[in-house]
């Protein structure tokens, strides 16, 4: 039952991305191109999502268990540090370079788009590199 709900939420999220125009990299770049002919559509995507989200997370914050009975797993970290900002800047640079962020890239893989497949493989490799660097950092930290 839980697996079905997760699949359906993924499906709904993917359909939302297609409807919003997020799976068209040229539209994403059109939003990020402030100096050119600017397409403000994606600001409305975020606005629409947050409009719903504010209520949902307001409710979620007050709950201790999810509807399936598990513990609520909301982030607790509040640090704004170099990792957060440096990582986000790297992500933004990659987003601006190709016009894909992770969700729309995966949806486009489902559509069989060759550049989205290559992008996603590179993204997974990037995540593997992160895990390797993290393991090395933790090993070095525990050695001292």
């Amino acid at each position, binding site marked *: 039952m*839980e697996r079905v*709900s*997760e*699949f359906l*939420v*993924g499906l*709904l*999220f*993917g359909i*939302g991305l297609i*409807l*919003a*125009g997020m799976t*068209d*990299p*040229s539209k994403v770049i059109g939003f*990020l*191109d402030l*100096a*050119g002919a*600017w*397409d403000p*559509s994606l600001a409305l*995507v*975020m*606005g629409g999502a947050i*409009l*719903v*989200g*504010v209520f949902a997370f307001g409710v*979620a914050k007050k*709950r201790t268990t*999810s*509807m*399936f009975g598990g*513990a609520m*797993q*909301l982030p607790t970290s*509040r640090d*704004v540090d170099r990792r*957060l900002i440096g*990582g*986000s800047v*790297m*992500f*933004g640079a*990659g*987003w601006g370079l*190709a*016009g894909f962020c*992770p*969700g729309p890239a995966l949806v486009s893989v*489902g559509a069989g*788009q060759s550049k989205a497949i290559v992008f996603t*493989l590179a993204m997974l*490799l*990037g*995540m593997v590199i*992160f*895990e390797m660097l993290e393991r090395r950092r933790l090993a070095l930290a525990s050695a001292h």
Partner: protein
Amino acid sequence: MTIDWSNFTPWSSLAGGIVLGIASALFVLMNGRILGISGIVGGLVKRRSGDTGWRIAFVLGLLAAPAAWSLFAPPAAARIDAGWLAVVAAGLLVGVGTRYGAGCTSGHGVCGLSRLSPRSLAATIAFMAAGFATVFIVRHLLAR
């Protein structure tokens, strides 16, 4: 700045955003988790046992979205201007960056801002600014 009215899609983008918000709301209330694509996929790369089923179910939903969409509407437009090398570089940046930054457009941009998280606000400003800067460099400085 000029507004690109010909490509502006306010209603479908707002509606798509609302769907993204509903999916994020369902996920946090039913599963107790943040709907963040980079975190969900990044957890698959880690291979921690017992923590993969829900991630795979969600990703399969994303991958199935174009097929579900095509049952009701013609395939959505998608144009990727970036070359192959740029696509690979972008994927690596997005993979490493979202893991260091602990989130992407969904986790920080939608869920984090909906939770009124200062950390997600900082991350969102950072990746947006980097996206704007990257498109400016690629489209207006290098393309000349």
